[in-house]
């Protein structure tokens, strides 16, 4: 006797997605408390993941603007805290490819009666400064006023808004580094840079107030072209080799990255936390899906008896798991996106972060993690269901 003449007249499973979809939604939401808690656990975890990724990006991604690509930072080879002699300037200026150079000296001033410094101040060369930081937008008359008055300063828009400072105001800062208090006249407000919180004033004003020690914090240089960058960097490093003030010259990008590395292995720590979040999330989701499916073993056995195949049952489980994970992702990633895009992040973080951009890539990572989570969480229950015989499944207690 042969195998028989059975020929399947089965339809495509997706004959009626509405009916199938409604069945999946009803199943997913049959235990509303568990579904809500599952969605919330995914949402909170993904919110945390997105926050960590954005924080990591904000801390580690160096400026990528055209201006930044042409800037070189020169600091003491020993430590960034060590000052450099002002006499280095003409030597650097003579190096071919150097277009502009300005000192960049940390003042560390406290504003008003604040206990800690709430924004950074740097002493610069007011003429060279606009040539180096081309992305900072300041009205021409304000820049002229800044350059013309030794006591003048320009302040970033965020700080100006925070303290309601406007052009023409006078402000007082007490340095935590130098034994001096300085009064400044606000000549202008700048914006459009990567960090619109800082204040810039005349290096000469600082020098005069502290007895002209002939030192600067760092040199910031603009090179003529990106092609000149490696040669200029090498030339500067070479120029001060075996002197009492050896330097380390590097691109702004390299400087920012090395600056970050000084803060410890933030990337590693954030990476580990993110991995732990994702892993914990996966365990929670897998456990929830397993419980949900175990509860319905009998029903899945009935579906098998009625003619549903393994792959169709897998599709049910996958759709349910994926759907819950994606709802969690919408809430978590969407919530983070809304909060960080439309909220005042400077206020929320007390000025630690000015921008907190949830990039498309980070949104993508969040959604991808959720999708992966949905898929992985469905694998275990699907294997159990595939292995389950109809007869054994029907014996399962409700």
């Amino acid at each position, binding site marked *: *006797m*042969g*195998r*028989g*003449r*059975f020929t*399947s*007249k*089965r*339809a495509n*499973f997706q*004959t*009626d997605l509405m*009916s*199938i979809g*409604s*069945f999946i939604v*009803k*199943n997913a939401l*049959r235990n509303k408390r568990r579904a809500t808690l599952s969605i919330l656990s995914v949402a909170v975890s993904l919110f945390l993941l997105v926050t960590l990724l954005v924080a990591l990006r904000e801390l580690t991604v160096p400026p990528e603007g055209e201006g930044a690509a042409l800037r070189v930072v020169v600091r003491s080879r020993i430590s960034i805290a060590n000052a450099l002699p002002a006499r280095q300037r003409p030597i650097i200026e003579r190096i071919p490819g150097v277009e502009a150079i300005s000192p960049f000296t940390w003042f560390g001033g406290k504003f008003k009666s604040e206990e800690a410094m709430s924004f950074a101040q740097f002493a610069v060369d007011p003429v060279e400064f606009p040539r180096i930081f081309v992305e900072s937008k300041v009205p021409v008359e304000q820049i002229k006023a800044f350059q013309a008055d030794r006591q003048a300063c320009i302040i970033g828009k965020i700080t100006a808004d925070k303290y309601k400072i406007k052009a023409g105001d006078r402000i007082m800062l007490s340095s935590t580094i130098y034994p001096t208090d300085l009064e400044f006249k606000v000549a202008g407000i700048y914006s459009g840079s990567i960090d619109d919180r800082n204040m810039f004033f005349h290096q000469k004003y600082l020098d005069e107030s502290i007895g002209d020690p002939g030192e600067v914090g760092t040199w910031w240089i603009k090179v003529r072209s990106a092609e000149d960058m490696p040669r200029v960097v090498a030339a500067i490093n070479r120029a001060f080799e075996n002197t009492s003030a050896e330097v380390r010259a590097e691109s702004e990008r390299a400087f920012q990255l090395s600056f970050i590395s000084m803060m410890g292995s933030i990337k590693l720590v954030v990476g580990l936390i993110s991995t732990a979040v994702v892993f914990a999330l996966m365990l929670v989701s897998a456990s929830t899906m397993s419980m949900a499916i175990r509860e319905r073993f*009998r*029903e899945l056995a*009935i*579906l*098998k*008896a*009625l*003619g*549903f*195949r*393994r792959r*169709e049952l897998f599709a049910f489980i996958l759709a349910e798991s994926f759907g819950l994970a994606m709802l969690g992702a919408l809430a978590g990633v969407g919530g983070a996106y809304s909060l960080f895009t439309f909220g005042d992040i400077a206020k929320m973080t007390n000025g630690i972060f000015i921008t907190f951009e949830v990039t498309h890539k980070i949104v993508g990572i969040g959604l991808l993690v959720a999708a992966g989570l949905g898929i992985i969480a469905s694998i275990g229950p699907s294997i159990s269901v595939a292995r389950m*015989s*109809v*007869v054994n499944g*029907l014996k399962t207690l409700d």
Partner: protein
Amino acid sequence: MTGANVVTIRDLSKIYRQGEINVTALNHISLEIGAGEFLALMGPSGSGKSTLLHIIAGIDRPTNGECRVQDVDVTRLNESELADWRNQNVGFVFQTFNLIPVLTAYENVELPLLLTRLNRKQRRHQVNTALELVGLADRAHHLPRQLSGGQEQRVAIARALVTSPRLVVADEPTGNLDSQSAHDVLGILQVLSKTAGKTVIMVTHDPKAAAFGSRTIHLEKGELSN
């Protein structure tokens, strides 16, 4: 109203392995069941009657032997073929109804039709016909928890019939019902066999239920006893 054989069983055995021990559930059974027959399978617990029913219905596999249903040897179909075959040829009625609790009566009955080529309108017609047949058209949009046990079982019968299978298998369909509901359900199964020509195979402990059948066979220790 019986005719050519719908089920032909030859030398069928089923041996379960429980740890180190082999348990013979069915021992070289041979049996023929005609079209339109309402067969009652009786026997004490553990006699193998449910196992036999499961093999005929294609939800369990024998260790040896042949089980042809409408000329198809179901023991030789693979998992997917068996799923399709069940969908198109067998209607199931279980003791505990086994309706999906989140779906209405209508949606429960519609479930097997989601695997067919019928469009929504055709499905609606089939589902309504099946529900009318069991007298529950007015309860189509009730959830199982809103129905009595007897009504749930009638919905399960409607689900078993909706794909128009030739074979309906019922595993103690009245085990959880009061006598009136049991009578109603058995009446429906009887009508299916007598007037619609369905072959109904029912496992039961209850001689009164078996009396509704056109034939009763007894199983004992995995063998036919009469």
